[in-house]
Each structure stands twice: as C-alpha cells, then as structure tokens.
C-alpha cells in the first residue's frame, strides 16, 4: 500500500473497529437509545431528520464562514499594523492575548444583549474566538524574513511596498496558513458556543439549538446526529485549509514538500 493510501486506510480501519464495537455493545447489552443510541440508529435519525438537521447545519455553517472571513480580514489587518512598528505591537499585543484568554462563554451573553441583530451577535462571538491564531501567526510570519534577503532588498534600494509585496508577504504565507487551519476549527467552535449561549432565545436554528432542543426532549439519537454533523464539518474545514495550504505552498515550502 502506498503511504498516501495508508494515510486514509488506517484511520478508516480504526473507525470501523470502534463503530462495530459500539454497535455490538449497545445491541449486546440492550442499552436503550435514550441513553446511548447505536451507530445505526444515529445514521437512521440523520436520514429521517435530514431536513431539520441540514437546515440547521446550513445556518451554523453560514455563521462559521462569516466569522472565519471576518477573523481573516481583521486578524491580517492587525498583524500588518503590528509589524509596522514595535511600539504598536508592544502596546497592543497584551490586549490581543486578553481577547484570547477570556472565555467566550463569559462574554457572549453581553454581546448578545448589546448587539440587536442575532446573526451579527453570533458572528462577533465566533470571530473573537477565531481571531488570535491569525494575528499571532501572521505577525510571526511577516517578521520571519530571511535576513540575507532583507539585506539584498535593501542593497537594491527596494521601497517599503516592494519589500512587503515581494518579500514579507510570501515569507509569511506558511505561517498564515497554519493560522488558517487552527482558526477554521475555532470559528466553528465559536459559532456553536455562541448559539448555545443564545440558546432558545429566538435567535437560533443552528445545530447547537438542535442539540439543546433534542436534549430537552431526550431525543438522544438526534443529539448524536447533530454532533456528528458538527464534527464532520470541522474536519472538512480543516481538510479544506490543508488542501489550500498545500496548493499555495506546494513545491517550495518544507512543510508541504514530500520527501521520498
């Protein structure tokens, strides 16, 4: 088997074994579905409630993508601001950290109260969660320029703009993509957490709302189905970002070069 195929085959094998074990235990011990549903039951629910669940997924995904885009724009903007001047970075970086370490669950209620528009309030919460990795990685990347190349640019009287476009931005790309990979997952988590906090307050029809509702109704199979959708979405986002990174850096950056 090629290493390429192994990368898919082995995790898949683990999944099959775990699912079989799960199914076997639930059937064998006769556990009722409102405690632990079997994988088959979850799959069945996914099909039966498809309309409801996928509509909810579309909502959550929309919030996620909006927040992810906002995090990229704002994060890259802040990173560019930081590298202009050490003083700016020194003055503002602690606040970026503050943003990162404040639990979103704690400030989400405030944001939901302050911001009237439900979509906007959810997007703001999720953006706050996803922002920091983009700021930190892009800033590091913009600073991680080969000093020899920087001297070379200086020797050739390159303008600030030329140095930025031809040297700093390409040098920052590998770091930026690491930030993207982390933030894509965080945007999803942020969206789900914000939906949870907003709860049944009339805002949500997202997956978190479905999980809450299913919980109240002891509809555990639907809860599992919703959870599965969130997980699959997270993995898909991560995969998409990895693919984007490989596409952009393929060939030149160590992280994406395959050494045989």
């Amino acid at each position: 088997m090629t290493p390429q195929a192994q990368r898919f085959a082995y995790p898949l094998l683990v999944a099959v074994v775990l699912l079989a074990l799960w199914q076997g235990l639930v059937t064998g011990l006769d556990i009722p579905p409102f405690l632990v549903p079997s994988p088959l039951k979850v799959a069945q629910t996914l099909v039966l409630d498809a309309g409801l669940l996928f509509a909810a997924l579309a909502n959550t995904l929309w919030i996620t993508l909006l927040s992810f885009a906002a995090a990229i724009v704002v994060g890259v903007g802040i990173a560019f601001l930081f590298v202009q001047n050490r003083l700016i970075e020194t003055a503002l970086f602690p606040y970026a950290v503050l943003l990162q370490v404040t639990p979103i669950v704690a400030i989400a209620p405030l944001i939901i109260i302050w911001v009237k528009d439900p979509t906007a309030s959810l997007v703001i919460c999720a953006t706050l969660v996803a922002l920091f990795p983009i700021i930190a990685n892009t800033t590091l990347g913009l600073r991680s320029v080969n000093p020899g190349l920087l001297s070379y640019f200086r020797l050739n009287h390159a303008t600030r703009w030329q140095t930025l476009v031809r040297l700093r931005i390409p040098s920052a790309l590998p770091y930026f993509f690491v930030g993207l990979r982390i933030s894509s997952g965080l945007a999803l988590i942020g969206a789900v957490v914000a939906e949870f906090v907003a709860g049944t307050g009339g805002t949500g029809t997202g997956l978190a709302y479905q999980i809450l509702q299913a919980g109240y109704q002891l509809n555990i199979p639907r809860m599992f189905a919703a959870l599965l959708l969130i997980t699959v979405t997270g993995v898909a986002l991560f995969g998409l970002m990895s693919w984007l990174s490989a596409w952009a850096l393929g060939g030149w950056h160590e992280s994406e070069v395959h050494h045989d």
Partner: protein
Amino acid sequence: MTDAPAVEILSAEKTYPNGTQALLPVNLQVREGELLTLLGPSGCGKSTLLKMIAGLLPASDGRVLLWRKPVGQAEGSGKRLSFVFQEATLMPWARVGANVRLPLDLAGVPRAEADARVHEALQLVGLDKFTHHLPRELSGGMQMRVSIARGLVTRPQLLLMDEPFGALDEITRNRLDGELLELWQQQKLTVIFVTHSIHEAVFLSQRVVVMAARPGRVVDELLIDEPYPRSAEFRVSTAFSQHARRLQDSLQRASGSDADLLPAR
C-alpha cells in the same frame, strides 16, 4: 582611465556602540578591473569591511569612496555594484528566472528586456536550462551560481563576494573559482572577494589583503603575480605553494602577535 580606483577606503573603521572594535582604520585602494581578496580568520572584520564598501554598514569613522563618490551616492556615476552573499539567499517560492530577475524588477526594468538579460545572465553561469526550476530543486553549487547570475544581471562594474563558496564542498568550490575567473576576465569586472581559504585566495587573486582578528585589522598585503588564465595545474605548481606559504606565514605572524590574548591550548 583603467588606473582610476574603483574603490577607495580612507581610514574607514567600525566601532560598535558597546565599544567593540570590529575594524581598526583601513586604508585601501582597489583598481578598476582588479581581483582582490580579503583573507583572514573569523572575526577579522573582512565581512564588515565588505559590507561597508557595499553601503550595508556605515563606517563609524573615515570614508569609503566608490568611483570617487561617497558610498550611497555612487549611482550618480552611472556605475553599479552587486553583492553576493555567503548563502545563495534565493526566494524559495520563486523560480530561478524570477530570482535572477529580482534586481531588475525592483529597478522597474521592462519585462521583455529584463527576461532577455536574465537569460543572458543564466547563460553566463551555465544554468539557462533551469529557468523554470525552483531553488530547492538545485544543488548547493547550482543555487550559488543562480545567486551569481542575479549579481551579474544588473551588469555591475563591481562585484562584492562574501565567502560565496564557503558552504560548498571542495570540488564544487574549485570549479566555481575557475568559473568566476572566466567571468571576471570576460565581463571586465572589479571583484572584491572575501574568503578564509588560503588556497582560494592564491588561486583567484591578483592581490591578497591579509587581515587579523581581535581587533579586526589589515596586517599585510601580498601580490600574486601569476598570469591568467589560471588552470587546475596552477593549483599544484611550485609557485602556487610558495604563494600559499607566504600567506600562511603572514597569517601566523599576525596571530602570533596577539597569541597572549588567546587561552592556552
């Protein structure tokens, strides 16, 4: 005007703000078309001196003139210098052609003309078939040749080289030394070459400036009065060994004078 100096160094020195003397005052003239080597151990200030000539480091006292104009205003003379670093310092994301074209792009040379000159420069170093390769697909020696092509593409009169072949194996280094001599003769360049290899200095230079460390200073100057072109046979000739011996002695005398500063071995 072949005797006009390309570079004049007038009591230029470098002292860092913390008081470290990187280079005691140096007086040196480099003729147009000369191939001069700065030879010395690490810490002797040879790279510092080269960077001062390039204008990458300001002299803390004294003056450096290029074509009779202060460094930084030399563009007015219509002449150019190029700097080749210790490492190839290529942009890993850009193909060989784009890497060589960089100085022309920065100067705003139109694309068609730039591409023609890139092709010409890559031909000079024998890499015109590798225009579309990425740097990582090339060997260390080839990357260095790309770096030299990038240095030549602006058609400089003065080429400053800071231990360019120091990281390469000896066989590759010897070959590139030979290629450099061909380029120097063919392009009528003035070359200032920094190295810590006695053999490289003898093989390449018309004149060797010997430097010593702690504090960095010029201690000696030797002429290598041998005809060009120099072939591989020159490396094993008696004359070559004699020149090497003289440089060796000179370096030893210089380090002997500050031997008391070194910890006992």
